[in-house]
């Protein structure tokens, strides 16, 4: 047994078990959360060259699973996020009142997303990635539909278009190179029309899934309307798989084909996303759209890092900054959506102005929101700070002052919109509002601890900086080209 297969098999097993158990399938999360966290930890501690061929069928035909640094960190963060979100959802039902179907189907869908995300982070096969992408997208749309059917339908249609663009790119790649393996492609890819079109199509499709500006239109309504646990999973997991596939494409499979100009297009879109998303977040009156637009901005940083990684011969800093930013955002944003959900349940409205008095009424939850905000703003000491610091140093080192400026301004803008929400919590009750007694219970319990734990982890990441940087470098494409030599087929 190896965590490389169990990380995919266990959630699928839980999915089937949840379907068999029906309404009581929800309790499975008590088993799944620690088990998956253990498996993810096991994966993180594997020797650096951990990889194997499924079924021992050799490339180019077979499928290689590989535990590189990105996969290790993403899978660990996924386990922590889904585990915490699941425990939260156990205590705080995710469904609309009376929707027994949602209460029951929530769990198999979560496990499907879990399996898809883990399988996607581990595989180096572009077609296999298509299937995992669909696992995650399907679950994501269904979870979004639990909040608003209209927003989910829009998300679905756009995601479908993204899938098709990606699939068309994969089809051209298969035809051109007779392989869809990232590692093999890196050795043979040439800059001809078919290859460039394939890369362009795959990139366009994945940018839709990753919700990079200006393809972000579907995200705010879907994420804002979904139930809090679903929003947390959408922002933390669903968006990240698209990003990781893009990393595989741009820095590995087609690294020899991509030019600096194209990388700067991605970086420029990322920079625009940071500014645009932040400004939109500042303009929101309601809490969940604010948090959703913050995702649009935070996704921008991931792509702003692309030219920084490619712009130097020693990209370990920028690479780690990019990866750690992804991880920190997963933890912090999931924490923030869960906290926001609890806060909105406690007050009557959904506006930021309605949050007055919550700091006294539910201190744990507001603390979680605040800690997550610290990481999202990039204040020390937090994972967000480590990531942004690494990116900023890379930008300054390379003389990319435009990107450096966006990094700084983005942090400031995040501070503006997040402090607005936070200070609303500390504001006294609005005069004519309901009295404090009616402001919901002072929730302790798992539902309040889960976001606090996630936000705490986002902060603690800041203290584990060097260790995480080392993990992120495992089998990174720019590192020493230790070509993976899996055991040959019998």
């Amino acid at each position, binding site marked *: 047994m*190896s965590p*490389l*297969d169990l990380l*995919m*098999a266990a959630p*699928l*097993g839980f*999915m*089937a078990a949840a*379907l*068999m158990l*029906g309404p009581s399938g929800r309790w499975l999360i008590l088993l799944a959360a620690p088990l998956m966290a253990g498996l993810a930890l096991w994966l993180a501690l594997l020797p650096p060259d951990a990889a*194997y*061929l*499924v*079924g*021992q*069928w050799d490339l*180019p*035909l*077979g*499928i290689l*699973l590989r535990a590189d640094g990105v996969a290790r960190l993403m899978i660990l963060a996924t386990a922590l996020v889904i585990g915490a979100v699941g425990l939260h959802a156990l205590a705080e039902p995710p469904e*609309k*009142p*009376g*929707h*027994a*179907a*949602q209460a*029951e*189907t929530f769990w*198999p*869908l979560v496990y*499907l997303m879990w*399996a*898809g995300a883990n*399988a996607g982070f581990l595989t180096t096969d572009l*077609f*296999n990635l298509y*299937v*995992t992408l*669909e*696992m995650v997208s*399907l*679950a994501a*749309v*269904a979870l979004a*539909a*639990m909040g608003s059917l209209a927003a989910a339908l829009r998300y679905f249609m756009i995601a479908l278009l993204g899938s098709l663009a990606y699939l068309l790119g994969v089809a*051209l790649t298969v*035809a*051109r190179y*007779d392989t869809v393996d990232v590692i093999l492609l890196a050795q043979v890819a040439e800059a*001809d*029309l*078919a290859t460039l*079109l*394939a890369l362009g199509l795959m990139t366009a499709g994945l940018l839709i899934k990753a919700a990079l500006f200006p393809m972000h239109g579907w995200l705010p309504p879907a994420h804002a309307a979904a139930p809090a646990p679903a929003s947390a999973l959408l922002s933390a997991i669903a968006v990240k798989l698209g990003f990781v596939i893009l990393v595989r494409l741009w820095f590995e499979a087609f690294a020899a084909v991509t030019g600096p100009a194209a990388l700067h297009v991605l970086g420029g879109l990322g920079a625009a996303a940071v500014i645009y998303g932040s400004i939109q977040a500042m303009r929101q009156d309601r809490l969940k759209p604010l948090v959703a637009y913050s995702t649009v901005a935070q996704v921008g940083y991931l792509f702003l890092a692309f030219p920084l990684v490619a712009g130097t011969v020693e990209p370990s800093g920028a690479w780690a900054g990019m990866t750690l930013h992804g991880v920190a955002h997963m933890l912090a944003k999931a924490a923030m959506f869960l906290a926001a959900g609890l806060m909105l349940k406690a007050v009557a409205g959904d506006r930021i102005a309605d949050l007055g008095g919550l700091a006294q009424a539910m201190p744990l939850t507001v603390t979680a929101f605040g800690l997550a905000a610290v990481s999202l703003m990039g204040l020390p000491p937090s994972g967000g700070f480590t990531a942004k610091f690494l990116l900023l140093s890379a930008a300054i080192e390379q003389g990319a002052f435009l990107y450096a400026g966006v990094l700084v301004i983005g942090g400031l803008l995040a501070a503006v919109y997040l402090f607005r929400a936070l200070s609303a919590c500390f504001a006294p009750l609005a005069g004519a509002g309901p009295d404090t007694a009616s402001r919901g219970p002072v929730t302790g319990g798992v539902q309040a601890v889960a976001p606090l734990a996630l936000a705490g982890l986002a902060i603690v990441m800041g203290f584990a900086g060097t260790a995480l940087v080392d993990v992120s470098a495992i089998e990174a494409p720019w590192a020493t080209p230790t070509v993976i030599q899996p055991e040959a087929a*019998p």
Partner: protein
Amino acid sequence: MTFAFDLILCLMILGTAAIALFVRDALAAIAFFIAFGNLMGLAWLGLDAVNVALAEIAIGAGVTGVLLILARARLLALGDAATSTGSPLLLRLGALAACAGFVVLLAAAVLSIPPESGLDRVVAPLMPGLGIENRVTGVLLAFRAYDTLLESFVLLGALVAVWSLAPAGAWPGRPADPGMADAPMRRVAGTFGQLLLPVALVMAAYLVWAGSDLPGGAFQAGTVLAGGLLVAGMGGTIGLPSSDQPLLRAALVLGPVVFLAIGLAGVAAGGLLVYPAGLAKALIVTIEYTLFLSIGVTLALLVAGPPMPGASDPDPEGKG
């Protein structure tokens, strides 16, 4: 097949596609889509890909067609005729220019790649080790079994996603009856269903068995089973099952779970989805038989849609 045949077929494919996309009336569009799917099946025959031809006609034209017809009927009952309405001229012109340019680019890229069966050379020498002849089945159930394993869970997940749409108060429950409301029509369809369901079962079982060596396989067979179940359901031969029936749930997860279990058992022989020497064919056939059953039931329920309130029990016998 000659070039002339291929050319005429391709033109007919494009023609039916264009009508299916742009005709005003939704039912006409779906009818042409089904014709388009059947012609696509012919195209796959022209490409000597019989496995895909079967899948395309059964799933691409058949199941998708029924799915769309049923959705259109349910929309029509709500007063939504799903007619295509024109969009602004400027949008159409812009889209036309963009799509035409894109097609030219795509066609140029396609023409720059010489058609060849490159991986056939890799697949062919590996087949004797599996003990089956059908290379496509070999790829689906051995060399790329991991894709197929995940895909079987995608299908299951799609049904869960459809179920999640059940309105408040309808869970657990049955999908809205897709059957004929008119009693004489129901009788006619019922007679046909009684005849077709056993035939479909036999036919599907044969398709799985043949799929080892001849064109066929679990997906094609599952679709045939789904077709039989649907026709039987429309005629009232079998009642639609309630979403919480344990037997139904077991039928749904059986195939994917057996596949997963065999995959994990492979670890004993060296790794995920490794088939021990000599056992490959037996394991593949086991996977395919359980998978086809689950696929059949899943596809039928996918077409039927989410449980709805007031979908009463039309037939107490439950489902087959």
